[in-house]
């Protein structure tokens, strides 16, 4: 017998459920929102229908501040961009200005910059791995990563005086030379970091939960990655073998023997594996650097850009005048513009410097490596589960300092 189903459903269980999309606000103060970022996600059940990212909570006016201080005074500002790998920011900025000044730096300074950069690259990757593990529930991994990172920070304190915000470079070279016996200590620390790294990898890479949450989530195809402007490990995870250290070698990278890991799937797991593999490669680079570094000057001897030695400053009128002019008016970078790029931990860190011939930058444009990755999040996460947002946000390594300048 045909009953009139529409007027009288068989039971409440069969009745259509009213559903409404929920708008969930994540952040800006949120443990998983790296730095301070606000994500407003519109959810249909557990799937993200639409996501809007609201950034700017950490905007400190980096570009504007740099326009009002002298060139060498910009270094502390650059430190605070990608604050987990500060030396790489310093190096990027110094290279840009030296390109504009057409200044050659001594070889030892190049080696020291590479050493500093690679140590900070290891720190950056450890931070990411630790955070990724922790946010997916593996608290132990975080602690191991922090232990490893702390060891390296101790080494960096011995090198440049600060764990995090190093201000290590100067226009023309580096600020200080490595202390006696530092290279041995770093190698010892690297051994310990390697142990911890293998332990972390052992805990995560074959872990069912980790694999389920990261494999297949946050997939970015190679074409998409390029279109979004990805660079660095995230681009390589999507299959594009592009690394600036190999493509346009700078400093002494052309003399070092290392490999570039390239992923296949472009998912979160691949991005994680990129970091692990890059940790191994950075370790390799560092050991080679310590073997190959030779004695020499750590800063160029061009008096137009470099301060005179202190005994001269205190003792002779020439020295004090020289020091005075450079410090008070700033080095006079020739007028013009230049774009210089380095491979930071996260991707292509670009500085577009415009000088008007004076002692202060006229414009200092920053291409933050994390910027395109963060911008692409709403596109990547459309239609995906909310739970996938967490590992994706982790693996693209958004550092608030550089994205929000």
């Amino acid at each position, binding site marked *: 017998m045909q009953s009139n189903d529409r007027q009288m459903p068989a039971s409440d269980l069969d009745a259509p459920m009213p559903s409404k999309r929920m708008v969930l606000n994540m952040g800006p103060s949120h443990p998983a929102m790296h730095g301070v970022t606000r994500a407003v996600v519109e959810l249909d059940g557990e799937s993200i229908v639409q996501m809007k990212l609201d950034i700017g909570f950490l905007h400190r006016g980096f570009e504007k501040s740099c326009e009002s201080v002298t060139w060498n005074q910009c270094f502390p500002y650059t430190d605070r961009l990608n604050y987990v790998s500060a030396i790489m920011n310093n190096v990027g900025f110094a290279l840009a200005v030296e390109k504009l000044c057409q200044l050659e730096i001594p070889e030892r300074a190049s080696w020291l910059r590479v050493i500093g950069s690679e140590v900070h690259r290891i720190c950056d990757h450890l931070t990411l791995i630790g955070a990724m593990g922790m946010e997916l529930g593996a608290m132990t991994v975080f602690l191991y990563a922090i232990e490893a990172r702390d060891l390296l920070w101790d080494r960096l304190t011995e090198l440049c005086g600060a764990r995090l915000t190093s201000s290590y470079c100067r226009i023309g070279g580096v600020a200080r030379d490595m202390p006696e016996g530092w290279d041995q200590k770093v190698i010892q620390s690297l051994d310990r970091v390697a142990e911890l790294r293998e332990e972390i990898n052992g805990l995560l890479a074959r872990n069912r939960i980790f694999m389920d949450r990261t494999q297949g989530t946050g997939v970015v195809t190679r074409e998409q990655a390029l279109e979004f402007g990805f660079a660095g490990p995230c681009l390589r995870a999507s299959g594009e073998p592009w690394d600036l250290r190999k493509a346009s070698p700078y400093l002494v990278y052309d003399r070092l023997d290392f490999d570039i890991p390239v992923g296949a799937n472009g998912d979160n797991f691949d991005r994680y594996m990129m970091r692990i593999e890059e940790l191994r490669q950075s370790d390799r680079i560092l050991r080679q650097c310590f073997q190959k570094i030779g004695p020499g000057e750590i800063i160029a001897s061009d008096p137009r850009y470099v301060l005179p030695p202190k005994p001269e400053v205190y003792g002779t009128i020439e020295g004090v005048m020289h020091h005075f002019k450079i410090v008070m008016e700033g080095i006079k970078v020739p007028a013009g513009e230049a774009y210089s790029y380095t491979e930071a931990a996260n991707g292509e860190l670009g500085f577009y410097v*415009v000088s008007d011939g004076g002692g202060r930058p006229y414009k200092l444009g920053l291409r933050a490596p994390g910027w395109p990755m963060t911008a692409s999040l709403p596109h990547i996460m459309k239609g995906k589960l909310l739970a996938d947002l967490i590992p994706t946000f982790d693996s693209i390594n958004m550092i608030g300092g550089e994205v929000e300048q």
Partner: protein
Amino acid sequence: MSKAVIAALLERFPDAVYQPYVGVGGDACAFVQKDRIADVCRFLRDDPAMDFKMAPYVTAVDYLGANPRFEVVYNLVSTSKNHRVRLRVKVPEAELSVPSITPIWRGADWFERYCLDMYGIQFPGHPDPRRLLMYDEFVGHPLRKDYPLKGRQPIIPEREIDDLFRGPGPAGRS
């Protein structure tokens, strides 16, 4: 090799691309007419010899006192061919808009929003033209040279609590 890109551009767009030069350090650069930048970029992306598949870094510079006052700078890189090119577009203050290249590369989205936020340059064709880093009620454009370093903003009334659930800012409400 990057100079070949500029040569090709000059050949293909003789009226749009002008004043090519080699920048400090060997960068291949050229100026592009404001209205044609989207065409030039599309060519650079699609032509197999150019293959600039990666979204460029877009920034703007305020040359206060010069006319045209602003300049939008595109730093493009081709990962497959390993060449780099810098295109500069002069933008006068009277017509402060440049065709958006976001339809070509979605990655240019936030860079153009940054230029809008910081300099006030409009990008017609941009899918989401609103401020990026500053809050919506911000008066002025901070990176312009005539905006003071320590500028003060008018006090704005607090948004009602409900707004937090409807999305960021009046411009973002859907």
